């Protein structure tokens, strides 16, 4: 599992860095994110779902499973 600490990073750089990390992964691989509460916590999972990835929330972390599109 790849992990990315995006605490202290402002939107939209949070999603930019998430996308760049996802680009290096294979479909089905997962990416664990540490995100600040608020805008990042709200918008990064939404953006990930919109681009066809599966998202799991919990334990103060966001896990994104890379989609195959």
């Amino acid at each position, binding site marked *: 599992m790849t992990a990315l600490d995006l605490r202290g990073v402002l939107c*939209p*750089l949070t*999603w*930019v*860095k998430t*996308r*760049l990390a996802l*680009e290096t992964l294979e479909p089905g691989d997962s990416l664990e994110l540490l995100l600040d509460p608020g805008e990042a916590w709200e918008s990064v999972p939404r953006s990930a779902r*919109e*681009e066809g990835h599966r998202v799991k929330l919990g334990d103060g972390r966001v896990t994104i499973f890379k989609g195959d599109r």
Partner: protein
Amino acid sequence: MTLTEAEIERYSRQLVLPEWSAAAQYRLRRSCAVVVGAGALGSPAATYLAAAGVGRLGVVDSDAVELSNLARQPLHFTPDVGLMKAENAVVKLSALNPEVEVQSYPVALTAANAEAIVAGSDVVVDCSDSFETRYAVNDACCAQGVPLVEAGVLGFAGLVMSIRPGTSACYRCAFPIPPPADSVPSCREAGVLGAMAGVIGSLQALEALKLLTGVGDPLVDRILHVDAGTRWTVVETSRRPDCSACADSPTPAQSESTCSG
């Protein structure tokens, strides 16, 4: 290959585009574009290519900046009057994006030197203002197999087309015969509104970015006509089997230029 933190921040608004990617950004960084003309079309075209992160950018123009240029050529500022446009473009574009290697060609592009100038580049953006130069650029790009974005603007109207030599219609396929010399008003006679040229030059940059990165759908075998910025019409065009520029699939030749190697 990785992007630096500064690159991620600089290009963040294009990197968030669902269609864009780090791979697209790398392709752009490895690319070389040549912009022919640093005037009304070339100013926005070169500016957006440099800003977007093209790796190397050549700017061809043999003119000096004049006061009458400033209303439509936003690369050139009032204190730049008298400077060579190609060299001033290098100063401005390098200040905009120091990551880009910008090269000036302060020469007039002609049929004689066109192939040497375009050779080895990944796209040519023709921002020239005469039919003679357009045909010279088109023929050189066809001979060298270099993708090309053609455009023209006059008054409140303009057109744009992208060309993949040997695959899609070239400028000569679409416009095989130059109009009679006395029928064509020059920009000097007919006038042009700077903002209209800005629209067309920006579209040229957009087309070049599509051709370089593979992102999006370039205007190949199509001509986009923009009238007063309000009526946008796409006209289909196709290759002519007897085209003197692109009919025989020419073998791309290698020659000395900043873009080769």
